[in-house]
């Protein structure tokens, strides 16, 4: 038979008995995608995280003190300013998670299951929200409502709103806005895989529309809890709001407290590590609560038998009400910060004490003509392309490990480290990298990568991997394992089966994950600030430098152009997908 030549033709038992331990070991450590995956996970996630966190218990290990083991670093974390900041972060995280999940669920239903006219605006909005880091959203609001800001220049009295903005309400609002797209994508992807048969089963058994909605919500429960866990983790580890509204409004949060610790002289790394560990614990508690609520249930609803859902036809009143809701949401989440950024970018003299202001495009012109303003955008684009590709590849493997039916050690390990990394603020992550890749033994190994683009790309990837993996878990969990088994027994190796079966089934979520990572990296702030190679500032650092130099116009112009550029990439990617992807790839998740 032809196939025999391709396969291992093995004689019976005597040959097998000669298989040595060395051969078995060699066969186990051969270069496979999983070997590459575990090696990368070890070097970009495990080692930097563990080394930095170990400082909390053992300052001497990293030459940060004299004791080999102490818990003294934790004392300041739970008292005084650190304790208060931690409490603030916890409350803000819970409120943002519940709020973002609720809004995202309603939007997923409106967009995917109804014919409300305003739904066409939502996908663009979601991507724009993803593109805009929290510090840019906060800066947009700030430019509008600050003293001698855009609205005051226009003659509006905005002091009461400013007081709200520079406090818990404003911070929570921005964190919730930033959480909505994360929650939406997780919930919407799960909803796409949820065929109409479940709703129909409720209706034909006497259930009302509301009853059917409740059943749908139950089936979506894994994704709802995942969404809340992601938003909570993102909120308590957010640095963008901490560096803007929190610092200006003097409402401390844990990450800002951490930042202050790192910037104090001498740097108190052990306390920073202890604070990071505490933040980690908060996230782990959230995940434990999630697991307890789910009690190990997983709802595998996507299979070859899934039928696409039909659309609910809304009445005229329904269309009006839902469209008003969507438009209102757009104005609050995106409209105001965008207006703040665009108006600020077009105002000449903002940030100065001038009494006369002009509106023109000269700030944009400066961006195009100055290499100091332009080059960061080019550099960040290159880094984002590399990072997005690497992170999505790794995230796909990680999510596969996380959704495997068996509760293996590998699964628990990946789960723990990805969650740990979600909770770690980017700035702490960057410090972990500085630590690790300046260590003597790393240099002795010939790894002189500190201060290079290579290290920056690794840090970006490690930073993006946890949330990217989490966003794919819901979809990966919906794929019946028998479909991969079928590909394997019908002649495809693991990699080919993955490319032929799994990838097309999650093509859209993969594309979305890639675009999110790309755009997230394009405007990333904390890792960029600490790890960028000398002379090559990424775009976020370019914006910060401009704003620090009171060039509000130039800074906001780069900000606007960067977001526009990311939107262009998103639009082109979706155009290419819709134009060239095979029909079967596009069918999944579409309405009938």
């Amino acid at each position: 038979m032809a196939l025999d030549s391709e396969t291992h033709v093995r004689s019976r038992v005597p040959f097998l008995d000669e298989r040595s331990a060395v051969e078995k070991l060699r066969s186990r450590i051969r270069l496979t995608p999983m070997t590459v995956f575990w090696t990368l996970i070890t070097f970009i996630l495990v080692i930097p995280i563990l080394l930095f966190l170990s400082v909390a218990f053992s300052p001497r290990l990293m030459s940060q003190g004299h004791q080999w083991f102490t818990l003294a670093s934790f004392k300041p974390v739970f008292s005084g300013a650190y304790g208060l900041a931690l409490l603030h972060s916890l409350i803000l995280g819970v409120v943002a998670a519940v709020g973002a999940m609720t809004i995202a669920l309603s939007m997923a239903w409106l967009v995917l299951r109804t014919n409300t006219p305003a739904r066409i605006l939502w996908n663009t909005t979601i991507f724009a929200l993803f593109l805009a880091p929290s510090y840019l959203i906060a800066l947009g609001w700030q430019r509008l409502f600050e003293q001698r800001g855009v609205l005051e220049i226009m003659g509006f009295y905005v002091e009461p709103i400013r007081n709200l903005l520079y406090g818990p309400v404003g911070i929570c609002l921005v964190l919730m806005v930033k959480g909505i797209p994360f929650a939406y994508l997780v919930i919407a992807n799960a909803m796409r895989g949820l065929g109409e048969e479940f709703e129909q089963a409720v209706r034909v058994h006497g259930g009302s529309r509301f009853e059917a909605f409740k059943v749908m919500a139950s089936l979506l429960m894994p994704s709802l809890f995942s969404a809340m866990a992601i938003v909570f983790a993102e909120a308590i580890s957010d640095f963008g709001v901490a560096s803007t509204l929190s610092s200006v409004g003097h409402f401390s949060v844990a990450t800002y407290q951490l930042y202050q610790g790192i910037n104090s002289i001498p740097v108190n790394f052990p306390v920073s590590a202890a604070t990071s560990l505490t933040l980690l614990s908060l996230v782990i508690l959230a995940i434990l609560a999630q697991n307890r609520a789910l009690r190990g249930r997983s709802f595998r609803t996507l299979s070859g038998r899934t039928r696409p859902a039909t659309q609910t036809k809304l009445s005229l009143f329904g269309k009006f009400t839902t469209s008003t809701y969507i438009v209102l949401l757009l104005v609050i989440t995106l409209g105001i910060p965008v207006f703040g950024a665009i108006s600020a970018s077009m105002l000449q003299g903002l940030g100065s004490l001038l009494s006369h202001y002009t509106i023109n495009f000269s700030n944009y012109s400066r961006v195009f003509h100055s290499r100091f303003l332009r080059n960061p955008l080019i550099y960040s684009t290159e880094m984002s392309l590399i990072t997005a590709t690497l992170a999505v590849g790794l995230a796909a493997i990680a999510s596969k490990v996380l959704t495997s039916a068996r509760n293996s050690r590998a699964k628990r390990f990946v789960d723990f480290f990805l969650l740990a990394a979600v909770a770690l603020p980017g700035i702490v992550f960057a410090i972990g990298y500085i630590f690790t890749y300046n260590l003597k033994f790393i240099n002795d190994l010939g790894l002189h990568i500190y201060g290079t683009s290579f290290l920056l790309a690794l840090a970006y990837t490690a930073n993006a991997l946890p949330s990217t993996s989490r966003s794919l878990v819901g979809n990966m969990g919906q794929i019946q394992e028998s479909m991969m088994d079928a590909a394997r027994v019908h002649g495809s190796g693991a990699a080919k089966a993955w490319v032929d079966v799994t990838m097309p089934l999650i093509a859209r979520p993969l594309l979305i994950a890639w675009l999110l990572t790309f755009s997230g990296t394009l405007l990333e702030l904390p890792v960029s600030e600490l790890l960028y190679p000398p002379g090559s500032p990424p775009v976020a650092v370019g914006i910060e430098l401009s704003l620090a130099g009171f060039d509000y116009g130039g800074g906001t112009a780069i900000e606007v152009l960067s977001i526009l550029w990311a939107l262009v990439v998103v639009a082109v990617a979706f155009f290419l997908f819709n134009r060239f992807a095979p029909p079967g790839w596009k069918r999944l998740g579409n309405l009938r």
Partner: protein
Amino acid sequence: MKKKANENAYRVEIKGASKHYGALKALNNFDLTIEPGTFTVLLGPSGSGKSTLIRSIAGIERLDSGSIAFGDRVVADNGFHMAPEKRDLAMVFQDYALWPHMTAFENVAYALKRRNLDATESSRRVNEALERVGLAVKGPNYPFQLSGGEQQRVALARAIVGRPSLLLFDEPLSNLDADLRERLRVEIATLTREIGATACYITHDQSEAFALADQIGVLRAGELQQIAAPEEIYRQPANRFVAAFTGISGSFLGTVIESHKHEVIVQLGAQRLECRTPGKLKVGDSVEVLVRPSATSLSHHHSNSLPAIVLDVAYRGRGYEHVVECEFGVISSVFANESVARGSRVEIYIDPHNCLAFPSEKRAADVVAIPELSHSK
């Protein structure tokens, strides 16, 4: 139809196969041989290890210990595990496992990729396979555009299109309605025999097993209870479990009062019943008498019959099946050409050849007589 084995059909030999899931023993030192070109059905209840076994043969599961060989080719042994794609087999899954992003044509064509055929030949074979399962015009349809039966037919076409050396069936009919199940069963039987592949089919449905198999293996708790031709399994079950799982219409507890090699007479209350036994029983042994459906009939025989009352009657086209209640329990599937009204008193003849006695730990005296019938006496 007399089958003709494909010259490439595998001889499957499983030796000492064991597989644990935590504390659960899915397979326990399991031995099985399947001759080339034969159709073997593995029959067992949930948790008997049949899915684990077929998935281990496919290479989807790894054995903890033991070996599997296809002819001279070892595919699993002592930690060695050959990947599924290298085993040259095909499989039909319980949930069909069709790929939703591919059309029916593409699903079937996928299984031909390993044959490296040119596009024309590949297309011809796919169309032929689809035509063979009655879906020639459904090639461009996606799985969600097909009914359950059509989806499983596509899965069947995908399995046979590459003319594999081994065909595995993982309860392929369990998600279908009765009529479809019967029609597809016939298609599976004929198509498998046409291509002459060795076939291994798992099910918990004994009627499916008897209809399809050249040999049936009955599994329980990861162990093979008996493997034999369907007729032998039915007539000479190795133990009570095999007999019970391969179809009975009722059972009674009694005591042996006469024993002649494989024939015994069992005392049931005031009645005596002649039965067969696969083992050795002696006078005084407590036994459980298992009655095959084919053993019963409404009759006026004077010997080997029990008085009963008709509880229910169902029209089955060629006649009527009755459920009756006698002093010692309920007997179902009692066939008669004419219906007998519910509540009627009847005599049930029990054919000694299809009435099997097995040793029982329970004693007849422990069983409380059915009050209603006692009263009616």
